[in-house]
């Protein structure tokens, strides 16, 4: 018999999440899972309610991508008490709380931030002035990307002259921030780190309008936006997350745990650094 499993999605109105959900549904059967999905609608409280809901519905396995890695913990305690297998997707709990989940598959947002920093350091060995535009303030990915980025860049000779997060993952807000930064710093700005590729679209538009050429723009996601922008040379680097691999890995791990096998608790799916030179190695992303 198939094992009843649920994917609790962070926010189905977000395209990467909607894409991930499709991967779970698509490949679930391959791993002997009867997959269901739930949508936390970007709300931490709803997400913990959904965990309870899955307990009530007697799911055997839940995969979840938390909106807030701390807020989800109390409900995961209950899930563990009820004997569910808990797999984290894309975003892991903090070390102290990792006992409340079985395994984690995903890219590491801290690592993504670090890689962005390294790419800057490689491109600007003699230092530079750059701007950072963060994703939705308070969002787990925004926090980790920011922290990872600064853990590396702060000790380099690259100077982050301005940092602002957005109120949502909104291209428009990223664009407005960039426009204002261009007014303020003008040609001083040599590079931009945007937390997400769709935000980079806004940054590119702002730079175009101001006729600011040669900006070194790095985004994270590796979605169609990032891929195309790298292809056209407007964006230098897109750090790509492989949601297909993440989903498959998560389900594979679950299958093993169900069978009683031991698994590695932490499974990083490598991030791909897509730039002009490596892009030919990657397929066109589906999202």
């Amino acid at each position, binding site marked *: 018999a198939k094992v009843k499993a649920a994917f609790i999605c962070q926010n189905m109105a977000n395209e990467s999440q*909607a*894409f991930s959900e499709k991967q779970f549904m698509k490949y679930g059967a391959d791993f002997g899972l009867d997959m269901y999905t739930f949508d936390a609608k970007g709300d931490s409280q709803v997400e913990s309610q959904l965990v309870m809901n899955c307990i009530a519905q007697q799911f055997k396995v839940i995969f979840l991508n938390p909106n807030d890695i701390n807020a989800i913990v109390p409900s995961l305690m209950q899930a563990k008490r009820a004997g569910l297998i808990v797999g984290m997707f894309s975003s892991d709990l903090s070390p102290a709380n990792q006992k409340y989940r079985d395994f984690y598959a995903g890219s590491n947002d801290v690592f993504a931030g670090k890689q962005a920093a390294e790419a800057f350091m490689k491109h600007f060995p003699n230092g530079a002035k750059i701007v950072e535009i963060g994703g939705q303030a308070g969002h787990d990915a925004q926090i980790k990307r920011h922290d990872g980025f600064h853990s590396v860049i702060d000790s380099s000779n690259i100077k982050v002259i301005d940092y602002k997060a957005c109120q949502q993952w909104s*291209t428009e807000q990223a*664009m407005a921030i960039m426009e204002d930064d261009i007014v303020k710093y003008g040609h001083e700005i040599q590079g931009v780190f945007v937390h997400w590729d769709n935000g980079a679209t806004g940054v590119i538009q702002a730079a175009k309008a101001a006729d600011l050429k040669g900006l070194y723009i790095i985004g994270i996601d590796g979605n169609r936006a990032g891929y195309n922008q790298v292809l056209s040379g407007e964006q230098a680097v897109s750090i790509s997350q492989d949601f297909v691999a993440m989903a498959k890995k998560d389900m594979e791990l679950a299958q093993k745990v169900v069978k009683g096998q031991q698994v590695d608790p932490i499974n990083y799916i490598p991030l791909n650094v897509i730039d002009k030179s490596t892009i030919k190695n990657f397929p066109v992303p589906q999202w």
Partner: protein
Amino acid sequence: MTVQGTNSAIRVGASILRDYLVLVMIAALVALTALIEPKFLSPENLTNIMFQFGPLMMVALGTTFVIIGGFIDLSIAGTINLVAVVTISLIQPMGQVPALLTGLATGTVCGALNSVLILSSGALTQAEALFMTFGLSTVYSAIALLYSHGSTMHFWDITASKSIFQAIGSGSLGFLSWSFVIFLISLAALWVFQEMTAEGRAVRLTGGNKTAARLAGVRISRSIVVIYAIGGFMAALGAIVLFSRVTTASPVIGVGYETNAILAVVVGGTTLKGGKGSVLRTVMGVLLVVLMSNCLNLLGVSTYLQVVAEGAILTFAIWLDNRKHM
């Protein structure tokens, strides 16, 4: 006599000050920012502002009428979401002009649908309309999500000509951006409608006292349809300017626009009680909201403090504006 002269001058000055308080706040903001950051008055920045205030301005102009008519529209966010994904997706299959028209029609229909539901249920109070349109906003957003499957559409997905949208988004006519030209035209049209047409007067009377207006032969149901249709149309225009500007459209692109628009309208001095207000006031309200974020960005204030400042200044403006009515 001279004493009297100065006295009355002071009185006139004070009353202008009271009437155009937002203007005073804008002036203060501009002066302060320009003093600290001279780049604020640079042509680049003025161009920025011109582009930045486009979308909210369109939306708020439409919302003004809904509020003058004594109602309120929270469905704007949903309408923007829907119009944005529908329009951008139709450019490729239909060509840009039909896509544009379909988009505008979609917004107008959403607006009209609001009014039809309001009228058919007899939800003729602002409060009922408030929550009815809140529900409808959710419905429109859900349709946008279903339609787009939650994914974002980009301009470079479109191989067909999209020159109109590119012009709206980033093109200029002389030193004016196309979006600014569109704004000027809409403003002029709406101002004429508000001040000089019979229907505009009917809207105002409806906002002032629905019962009395109806008994005096004013077609209040038509006024209600008209204000919501204008609201929907302007929201659609806002959506188009918005996604053209950022060259992508996601099904959540309009989040927050409804409350921002209402705030801007009220800050401008149009009262929620209905019957009173003007699109010109709304222009000032939007200007304040947009300038504020531009100024704070230039002053290097963190996003978080920006939100605090915005909330504080808006609250203060509304409070001050209210005092003059007391």
